[in-house]
């Protein structure tokens, strides 16, 4: 085995390698040459540009059998050629990003392309996308700032409550309660304990490391229940990876259950606040830094038109000043 490939393997070994690399698979990747033959896939000048990207992208799957690996090499080559033709930088994190893979898949003629699963597997192996991205429906992009409807939230809580695995049940319920009830999601979940729940003048609040959020009155009993799961220590157990993405895997591809999204849970909280509270309180409790950040939520606000109109006006002034 060449020294370069050995060092590359060592580098990959620390990452997500499916199985132990096979010597013959590594050799195949190193010697892959699609410029030969009558029906060559790629012309030599373009192959010179994309070969490093193709080999680097497929290397994490070197544990696969060579017959399987050829399909991955071809899929990656087609993606790399497309990215090169469209002027994208030939870097792993760019070419295997969620947006680019989706755009590539969408542009293939219907019925002519069958490498979608391979590409997502490659992206996953290279840690350029989350698990959620690879399993999401490719039809429409979910609105990250769209709040869950009452129906969706009910189904999500019901699904979480019915889980037989205690760890999963408690984790999922906690994520939902903190996200939809107090806008605490993603990294703000870390370090939140049962003692974080406190009161200010009769109102229930919960503190995270950078904010003190008012709990929605409807969610107070639910949050009390959730807090009882872990009376001592953090409400959600820290993991090496993104906890929300980890929990989202449990809800994907479940009939009738909306996919878990930390952003949408938080949007549920922010939109509820916008419908009931004044602007300054919304900013303080939601942890948003700028008025500009509220713009994305405004389309989903149905009630409290005075506050919303005020916000829209302020945003227009802000934009005008900036320009």
């Amino acid at each position: 085995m060449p020294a370069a490939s050995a060092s590359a393997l060592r580098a990959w070994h620390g990452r997500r390698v499916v199985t132990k690399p096979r010597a013959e698979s590594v050799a195949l990747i190193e010697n892959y040459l699609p410029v030969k033959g009558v029906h060559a896939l790629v012309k030599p000048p373009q192959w010179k540009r994309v070969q490093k990207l193709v080999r680097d992208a497929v290397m994490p799957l070197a544990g696969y059998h060579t017959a399987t690996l050829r399909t991955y090499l071809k899929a990656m080559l087609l993606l790399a050629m497309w990215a090169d033709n469209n002027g994208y930088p030939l870097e792993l994190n760019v070419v295997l990003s969620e947006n680019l893979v989706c755009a590539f898949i969408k542009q293939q003629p219907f019925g002519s392309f069958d490498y979608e699963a391979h590409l997502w597997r490659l992206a996953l192996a290279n840690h350029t996308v989350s698990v959620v991205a690879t399993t999401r429906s490719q039809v429409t992009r979910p609105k990250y700032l769209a709040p869950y409807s009452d129906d969706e939230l009910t189904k999500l809580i019901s699904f979480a409550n019915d889980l037989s695995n205690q760890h999963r049940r408690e984790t999922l319920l906690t994520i939902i309660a903190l996200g939809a009830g107090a806008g605490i999601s993603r990294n703000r979940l870390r370090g939140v304990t049962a003692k974080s729940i406190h009161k200010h003048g009769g109102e229930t609040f919960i503190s995270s490391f950078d904010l003190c959020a008012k709990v929605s009155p409807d969610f107070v009993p639910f949050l009390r229940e959730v807090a009882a799961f872990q009376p001592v220590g953090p409400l959600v157990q820290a993991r090496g990876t993104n906890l929300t993405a980890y929990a989202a895997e449990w809800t994907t591809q479940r009939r009738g259950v909306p996919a878990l999204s930390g952003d949408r849970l938080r949007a549920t909280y922010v939109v509820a606040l916008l419908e009931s509270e004044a602007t300054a309180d919304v900013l303080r409790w939601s942890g948003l830094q700028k008025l500009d950040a509220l713009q994305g939520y405004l389309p989903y606000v149905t009630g409290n038109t005075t506050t919303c109109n005020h916000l829209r006006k302020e945003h227009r002034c802000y934009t005008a000043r900036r320009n």
Partner: protein
Amino acid sequence: MLHSQKELKQLIADAERLLDENNTITFIEECISAAAVRSGRPRELSVRALMVALQVQVFDGRFLLTTVPRFLNNLDPATRRRLGITRKNGVTLRQVQHLFERIEKTNYDRSRTDDARYDNLDVLLNKAGTAGAHADANLTTSIAIDSSDIPSWGKDCYRMLFDADKKYIGNERRASDLDAHWRTKGKKGEKKAFFGYDLTAAVTVQEEGGPEVPRAIKSIRFRPATYKTTAMALACATDVAATQGTLGDVLVDREYTQSNHGRDFTLEVRKLGGEPVFGLKLNQVGVSGHVRGAVIIDGQPFSPSLPQSLRVIHRPLPAQTYALNPDAVKKYEDQIAARSIYALVLHSSRRLSDGSLVYKYQCPAAAGKLICPLVASSQFLALGTMPAANPPKVAPLKSVCDSQFRTFTAAELPLSQRHLHGSTAWRKSYARRNEVERLFSNTKDQASENLRRGSIRVRGIVKMGLLVALSLASTNRRLAKSYERRQPKPPKRGRGRPRKHPVIVMAEAIVATDLTRTPLRI
């Protein structure tokens, strides 16, 4: 060509109709009478007789004056009377030549050097040359403009001069056609050198996606070769705009838009209300500058997030003898399509008081074509939308990235057009320009008007121009007839009782049998 009396009558009627359509004869007579300063015998050959005789001969591709007297003298007495031929001894060649000279002198003053010397000539040729078009030609407002070379019968050469001692003292120019001009051959040999005139014509083309319209000439200019070609094309467009009251697409080749500032053609066409559709020269392809942060490529504004590799796309060039390879064309158009998502989207335009236009363009990410980190709303676009390859990190003030919309004046984007240059839509739109080439080809065809060197054996811009205009009118008439033949005709009404289908006969027989309970009889 030999014609029966019936055919000849029809041709004469057609010729009179063409000449009366735009009052060509009246105009010539007015010019002659306005310039009449000498006394003498009244002219015996009428303008109508001469013009009708020429027009009928041009229908057959003959332009010779020598055959005119014989033609007129062989007409029946009634037609001769109608045409104003009263001389008992018949028309002579001298009379024909004399009247032709008079027409030339009253419409053109060779001693003048300003552009106004062509005013009368332009009116005369436009009246004569645009007649005969089909009525459906008015269904479109779009035109294609181009010029074609009309070689003169005259010659232009130099003769060596010697003094009394037979010593060479220089060259003397000996031009038998004083109005014609040389056009040198192209640098790459794509055009031959010739001595003669340029015929610039505006020809109807169908609207984009519109119905077929008859090919017809809307306006012409006849000038010495290489004389202000772009200005002549603009004059034709101006004529059409004035006649129609509006102007649609104006299709021209890259010769007319070779100036990067566009002040000589594209901007003026836009002021007239037209939309120029044109090709670009090789030196105009690629990045030509930046305006408010937008990259100007092939005349169009693009987002600065456009990757470098897509900024210059070379179009495939045809070989000397072979047509373009379709695969090469497809590859080129695919690249243009890949680049097109970065093009700023034309949102609206408005006309200023001076007639010039300003355009409002929208950022492609704001328009939903691109995912750009600087545009928050683009983050929610549907999955599969292309991400920007090279987005700027910050949006400079007053740049296209700073706001959803930016306004550009027409002068800032002189080479912009409706479709991106090189795209499939542009190619299909630009292909309509072939109509003008087809028209020139038709007129020069030996089987029809036969407008080529040797057919016309008169010299001078008016004489040649008038015969060329008559041949264009003849082409218009022929194309109008051809268009009329192509139109679907209503089905002829059948005679007698309508025929019944055998199945119906069978069904009626079965029903009748069933009702009467008798054996089936058909």
